């Protein structure tokens, strides 16, 4: 399963719910969700801990737009929209946590 999250973890609990509900799979952070992938944010430790269960990706365009592409948490892979498409194709289902 590809879990798509588009809100910052300090604004909404979507990422928290995914990490406590989903069995595993891949997490793709898009839009404001990319803030979860920055070094030094209060959610960083939980995201890193989740990397044992999930592969974590963040959309490059959204990181760059917000001026935070220079501080991506180690272990998060940046992808472009083409990579986003590939992630959806490679996973059996995509779930957007709105």
């Amino acid at each position, binding site marked *: *399963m590809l879990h798509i999250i588009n809100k910052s973890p300090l604004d909404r609990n*979507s990422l928290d*719910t995914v990490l406590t*509900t*989903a*069995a595993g*799979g891949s997490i793709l952070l898009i839009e404001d969700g990319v803030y979860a992938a920055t070094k030094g944010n209060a959610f960083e430790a939980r995201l890193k801990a989740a990397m044992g269960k999930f592969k974590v990706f963040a959309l490059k365009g959204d990181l760059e737009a917000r001026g935070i592409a220079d501080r991506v948490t180690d272990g998060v892979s940046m992808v472009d929209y083409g990579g986003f498409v590939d992630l959806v194709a490679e996973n059996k*289902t995509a*779930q957007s*946590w709105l």
Partner: protein
Amino acid sequence: MSGDIKKFMFVNRKAPYGTIYALESLEVVLIAAAFEQDVSLAFLDDGVYQLKKGHSTKGIEIKGFEKTYGALDDYDVNKLYVDQESLAARGLTADDLSVAVEIMSRAELGKLMDEQDVVLSF
């Protein structure tokens, strides 16, 4: 219609009335049932509030839709799954709910989600 049957799960994480998502997602559920798909609904986080019984909307002059949850069974939609943790965090128990549901842990819900063909959120 090709007669394919897919497992559709509708994930509800938002409270009713503050936004329209709860109501409009129910409308999709009914259509999916009419198309004879394998429909289930998951309620997590504030989505569990949708099932709180006793909606009385006269004071806010918004049409209430509590009874639609009760009517789901008539459409053969009877797989309603509720996250135990979300209920507890909101001080709710099964007795507070307007319809019969299956209450389960997040982990169990997560496993169910992995079995779906299509997961729709609103």
